[in-house]
C-alpha cells in the first residue's frame, strides 16, 4: 500500500507542551477509575492482552531445552531475554478443536477461530458461520461497566480478501480471533489512526460541554432508532430478524458506552501523537499498534485487548529483514533449510517487536508498580508446526505478573497436552471472571503461581 506519513502540525505543538506534564497529573486523573476496580480501593486493575502470530513457529528454535528458571533463551525467544523475570514460557498446551476432526482441510481458519474460543468452528464459507465466545470477550462483557470501552481489537493486516479464504471456511474465521458470540466475530481495526480515534475521539475540542451535547444528541437519536427497530422486528421473518438483532445489540452497546463515559468524566489527553494512517514498514506498523495498547491500558480506557500480528494464512512479506517471499507458502517448507531459516527470521522479527511492547509496558508506571506488573499478556499461535499444521505443543508465552498472581521467570513444560483454554480459565479467574468453561477447557491450569 502507498505509504503515507502525516503530521498534524498544530497538534504537535500542543502535545509537545502537554507531554512533559503528563506523568503526574495524568496519574491523579486515573484515580477515579481505579476506585471502581475489583480488589482494594486504589489498587491497579489487571489488564489482559492477547497477541496472535499466524502460520506457526519453527518450534526447534523456540522451545527452550531446559525447564525451570535457569533455561537458555533460544534464538527466537532471545529478544525477550532482558525480561526473563517477567516472562513465563509455556510448553505442552494444545487446541484439540483446531484439528480437522473429520472436516478435511482448513487448519488456518480453524486455528484462528479456535485460539481464544477453544471451539471447533462450523465448516462453511457462507453466512451460517458458527464458532464460540472468545475468552477476551467473556472478560469484556463482565467488566463492561468499568471502562469506557469494553475491549479493543487490533490487527496488522487488512482483512479485505478478494476470493476464498481457507478450504471452504469463511474469511470471518481467518480474520478474527475475538468473538462476541458464536455467530459474531469482532474484526480487528487495522488502521492506527482510526484505532486512536476510537480511544480518544476525533474532535480537536474535547471540552466537556461539547462532549456532553454530543452525548445528549446521540442518545436522542439512538432512542428514536431503537424504537423504530423494535417496531420493525415485529414484522420481519426469521433471517431478517437476526440481522436486525445485531443492529439492536449495537444500539444498546453504544448507549451503554455513552452512559459509561458520563460516569467517567476525565478529559483524557492522548500521550502520543495521532497516527496518520498505516505506516510504511511493517515494524513501524506493529510498533504503533503496540503503543496504542499501552496508552489504552495506561489511561484505563479498556482492560482487554487482542492484536493479530497477521491474519491466519498471512501472505505478508518482510523484505526489510531479507524475506521478500509471502509468509504462508514459506511455512510449508518441507524442511528445506533455506526456507526454514527465512521463517525463523520472521519469527524472530515478530518477537523483537513484541519485546518492544513488553519493554513499553514495563516502562509505564501504573499505580504502585508498572503496567507490566499488572498485566497478563499472552503471545502465541494455535498452529505449532506450520509445515504440518499441528495444533499441540503450541508456542505460548505469558508476559506480566497479573498483579502478583503469576510467578514469572520460568519455562513450564506440561507433560500432557493441556488445553490452552485451561490457561485462559485460570487467567480469567485472576480478573475475577469465572465462567464454568471456555470451549474445551477441563479446569484450571497448574504451576502458574507456584513452582
Amino acid at each position, binding site marked *: *500500500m*502507498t505509504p*503515507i*506519513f*502525516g503530521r*498534524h*502540525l498544530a497538534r504537535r505543538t500542543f502535545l509537545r507542551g502537554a507531554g512533559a506534564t503528563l506523568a503526574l497529573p495524568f496519574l491523579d486523573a486515573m484515580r477515579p477509575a481505579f476506585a471502581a476496580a475489583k480488589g482494594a480501593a486504589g489498587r491497579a486493575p489487571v489488564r489482559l492482552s492477547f497477541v496472535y502470530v499466524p502460520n506457526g513457529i519453527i518450534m526447534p528454535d523456540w522451545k527452550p531445552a531446559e525447564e525451570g528458571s535457569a533455561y537458555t533463551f533460544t534464538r527466537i525467544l532471545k529478544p525477550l531475554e532482558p525480561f526473563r523475570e517477567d516472562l513465563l514460557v509455556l510448553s505442552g498446551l494444545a487446541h484439540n478443536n483446531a484439528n480437522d476432526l473429520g472436516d*478435511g*482441510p*482448513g487448519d488456518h481458519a480453524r486455528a484462528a477461530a479456535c485460539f481464544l474460543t477453544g471451539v471447533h468452528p462450523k465448516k462453511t*464459507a457462507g*453466512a451460517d458461520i458458527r464458532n464460540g465466545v472468545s475468552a477476551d470477550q467473556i472478560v469484556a462483557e463482565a467488566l463492561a461497566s468499568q471502562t469506557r470501552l469494553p475491549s479493543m481489537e487490533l490487527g496488522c493486516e487488512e482483512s*479485505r480478501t*478478494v*476470493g476464498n479464504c481457507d*478450504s*471452504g471456511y*469463511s*474469511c470471518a474465521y481467518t480474520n478474527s480471533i475475538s468473538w462476541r458470540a458464536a455467530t*459474531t466475530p469482532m*474484526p480487528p*481495526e487495522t*488502521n492506527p489512526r482510526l484505532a486512536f480515534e*476510537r480511544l480518544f475521539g*476525533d474532535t480537536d475540542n474535547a471540552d466537556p460541554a461539547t462532549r456532553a451535547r454530543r452525548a445528549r*444528541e446521540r442518545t*436522542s*437519536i*439512538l432512542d*428514536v*432508532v431503537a*424504537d*423504530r427497530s423494535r417496531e420493525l422486528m415485529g414484522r*420481519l*421473518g*426469521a*433471517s431478517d430478524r437476526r*440481522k*436486525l438483532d*445485531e*443492529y439492536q*445489540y*449495537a444500539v444498546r*452497546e*453504544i448507549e451503554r458506552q455513552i452512559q459509561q463515559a458520563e460516569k467517567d468524566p476525565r478529559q483524557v489527553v492522548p500521550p502520543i501523537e495521532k497516527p*496518520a494512517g498505516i505506516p*510504511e514498514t511493517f515494524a513501524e506498523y506493529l510498533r504503533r499498534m503496540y503503543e496504542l495498547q499501552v496508552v489504552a491500558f495506561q489511561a484505563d480506557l479498556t482492560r482487554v485487548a487482542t492484536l493479530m500480528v497477521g491474519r491466519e494464512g498471512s501472505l505478508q*512479506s518482510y*523484505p526489510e529483514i531479507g524475506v*521478500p*517471499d*509471502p509468509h504462508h*507458502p514459506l511455512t*510449508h517448507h*518441507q524442511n*528445506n533449510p533455506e*526456507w526454514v531459516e527465512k521463517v525463523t527470521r520472521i519469527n524472530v522479527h515478530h518477537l523483537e517487536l513484541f519485546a518492544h511492547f513488553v519493554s513499553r509496558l514495563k516502562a509505564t508506571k501504573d499505580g504502585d508498580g508498572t503496567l507490566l506488573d499488572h498485566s497478563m499478556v499472552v503471545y502465541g499461535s494455535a498452529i505449532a508446526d506450520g*509445515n*504440518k*499444521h499441528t495444533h499441540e505443543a503450541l508456542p505460548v508465552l505469558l508476559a506480566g505478573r497479573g498483579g502478583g498472581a503469576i510467578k514469572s521467570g520460568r519455562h513450564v513444560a506440561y507433560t500432557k497436552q493441556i488445553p490452552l483454554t485451561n490457561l485462559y480459565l485460570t487467567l480469567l479467574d485472576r480478573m475475577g471472571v469465572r465462567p464454568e468453561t471456555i470451549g474445551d477447557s477441563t479446569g484450571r491450569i497448574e504451576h502458574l503461581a507456584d513452582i
Partner: protein
Amino acid sequence: MRPSPRCATLFLPLLLAGGTLDADSSAPAGDADSAAAPFIARNCRMCHNAVLKNAGLDFDAHPLPASLAASPEIWEKVVEKLQTRQMPPPPMPRPDPVQTDAVVRWIQTELESVEATRPPDPGRVTARRLNRTEYDNTVRDLLGVTLRPGDSFPHDDAGYGFDNIGDVLSVSPVLLEKYLKAAEQVSRAALLGPDPQKPSLTRLQPMGAKIEPSTTVPAEYDETGLSLPNALHVLHRFPVDAEYLFRIVPSGSRPSGSEPVKVAVFLDGEQIQVVEVDPGEGPSSSSFQQDLTGKTREFRARVTAGEHWVAASVLRLYEGLPALYGGPNPSRLPMPAPPPFRPPENATPEKLAEARQRYEARLAQKWPVNEAKVRHIELIGPYEAAAGASPESLRKVYACGHLDGAHGRECPRLILTDLARRAYRRPVTEADLRPLLRLAETSRKRGESFAQGIALALRAILVSPDFLFRIETGPAVAAGEGVQKIGPYELASRLSYFLWASMPDEELFRSAEDGTLPDPTVLAAQVRRMLKDPRARALVEAFGGQWLQFRALESVSPDRDRFPTFENNLRFSMRRESELFLESVIREDRSILDLLDGKYSFLNERLAQHYGIPGVKGQEFRRVDLAGTPRGGVLTQGSVLTVSSYSTRTSPVLRGKWVLDNLLAAPPPDPPAGVPRLDESTVGVGRSLRQQMEAHRSNVTCAACHVRMDPLGFGLENFDAIGAWRTEDAKFPIDATGALPDGRTFNGPMELEAVLRQDRDAFTRAATEKLLTYALGRGLERHDRATVKAIARRVAEGDYRFSVLVMEIAQSLPFRMRKGDGGPS
C-alpha cells in the same frame, strides 16, 4: 470428493491379472434408461459402495432412479465428475466416452424433470445492509455530499466473491459508532458545509521502479517523462475542494554544466504546473556531477474533493545536457572549470604520469544522464476550503424551496418528509415523521438554528434501520410457502443498487409510485436508461473489480528484485485498462464473449511499453487494436495475470484456478491436507517450473483435479508474474502447450482462448451466475439452476450482448419474486 488411491491399489492386482473389470461397450447406447444403472454398477460401485464408501458416497444406498428425486445433489456431482472425466480416476479403466456422455445426458434430463415438478422457487434475500461503496454513493445522491465516510468503515466481509451479500454483512457496535460519526459529518456538510480542517502535511512517496544509470542518450524516449521510471505516480484522496500546497522533492544528479531540470506536475493526466530545479545552484558533493536531491520547489493549486491521480515527471529528461553527450538541445551553459590537477607530492615520474593519466581519464569520463527523478511530493492543506453548503446539497435538502433560509412553518414537515422518503426509499408514514419532527423541535427549543434542527433529524434518518438496510417485507405467509411479488419500491431499490450501487433516482421513484415499474415494458425501458447513465460505472468498479478481481491490484507487491520495473504507473494503468475494457463491453453493448478474446484493449504509453506494443505514445488511454499480438480478452491483461501470480513467480495452478472459478464457474475442490510444497529453490534451476509440476500429473491423487487446472495455467506461461511477454523463464524456454482432460489441446494464449470460446456456453453460464449473485445479494442455490440456464440460453440467442444479460436478470424469477419467510412468529 477426491479420489483415493486406496481403492485403486485394491483392484490393481485384479487388473494386472486381466480381471473382470472391463468397460462393457456392448450395451446399446440408445437405451440410456436401462444403461445408467448398470453403468454405475460397473464403473463406480467398486469404490463407492456400502463397505468402502469412498468420499462418503455409497451407490448401494442411492439406487437409480429413485434417488434422483431424493438426493439430486449427489447426482449433480456424479454428472460433474463424469463430464470432466475425473471419474473413474486412473488407473481404473476408462469407460467408453460415448456411453459415458449418454449416461450423463440421461441423468441431466431426469434431474431437470425432477426440478420441473417442483414449484418455482425464487429464494429469499436477507435484509441487506448498505456496504461501504453503497453508503458513500447513496449519501452522494441523497444529499450531494462527496465526503466518503465509508473509507473509515471496516472492510465488508465478502461471500460468494462479492461484498454485497446480505447474509454476510453484519452490524457491530464499532460500525454503528462509525455510522453515527458519519451521519454527523454528512449532515453538517450538507446543511452547513464541510467542517473546517486544519491544514496538515501528507507525504506521498510510493515505491518506485529501479533506474539503471546510463551515460548514453537514447534516440527516442517519452518526453513527458510520465512513463519513465523517473516519474512518481500516486492516487490520493483530497478531503475537500480547496487550495493545496504541492512541494516537489527531486533527487538524483546531472552532469555538471547541465541546464536546469523541468518537473511537470499532472492531476488526472492534465498538466497543472511546471517547476524548474537548477542542479547547479548550491553546493554539490562532486565537481563532475550536480545534485538535485532536496532542492524542493512549491506551488499552490486548487483541487476538487475526491480521489485524483497525481503524477510528477521530469520533462525532456535528455535535453539540456552538456554537448559532449550528444543529446538534443544541449546545454548552453558554460562547462564549469575542471578541478586542477593535483600531482601527488614527492612523486616519481612514473607515478606522476599515472596520476596524470587518471586525471585525464576522469575529465573525459561520462556521467549518468538519466538519474534525475521525483523522490516524493508533500501535500499541505487544505487552504481556503470552499465553505458553506454546496448549492446542490441545499437543493436536495430544502424541498420546501427556500434555499435562502427564509423558512415557513410548514417547512420542517416538507423537508423531512422528502428526505425520509428518499432515504428510506419508500413512502413515509406519520409514524416515521413524528420522531423526526420532535427531534427538530427539541433542537429549536434549545435555541439552535433551523439548519441545526434539520441536521439533527437527518442524523437520525442516516442511522435508522430503514436507511441502512434494504428490508423487503411482505404480507404474512406460512413458513416456506408462497411466492410473493417484489413491490414497486423494493424493485426500484433492487434495480438501482444492482446497476448503480446507489439509491433510486426521481424517475425510478415516480415509476414505483404510479405502480408501473413492474410492467415488463417499463422495466425494460428503465434498465436501458440506467445502463446508459454515468452511475452505471459502479458495475465496472464493484462488479467487475470483484468478478475479475482487478480490485486486488491495490495490494499486490511484486518482488522488487525480480521485477524492478513495477511501479504505480504500471499498477494504476493495468487497473484502468481492465476497467475501460469492461466499460466498453457494457456501454457499447458488446458480446460478453469479447471478454474472452476481444481483439482490442485500452492502453497508454506505459502499459504498451510493458506489453511490447509499439506506437502508443502519451499517458492518456486510447483504444488499441491488438491484431497481430498474442493478447486479447481479460486473460491476457496485466491485471488478471498479476493478481493470479505470486510476488516472486507465476503460478499455473493459481491461474488455472482463476479461469475455472471466474470464467467457467467450475471451481476445483479444495486441496487435500498435507499437500507437499513446491520446491521454490530449485524452480528454474535444475528443472523448469512446468517440469516440476509434472508431479501433479504423475501422482494419481493430485492428477484428478490438476489435469483440469494446470493446462489452463500452462497456456498462459508466456506471461510473467506481472503480465509481460516472455519466451524463456530463467534458462528454460517456455512450453505453453496444454491438454485438457477431454482431449482438446492448445499451444499458447490465443489457442487457449479459442478453446474457451468453444466453451462459450459454460462461460455464459458463469457470467450469468456471477452477475445474478451480485444482483440478488445472495449465493445461488439449486433452485436457481433453471433460472441461470434460461437466462444463459436467451443471452446466447441475443448474440451474447451484455444488455440482454442485464435485462434477463432484471426480469428473472428471483429478481421479481421472493419466497415467503414465515412472517412474524
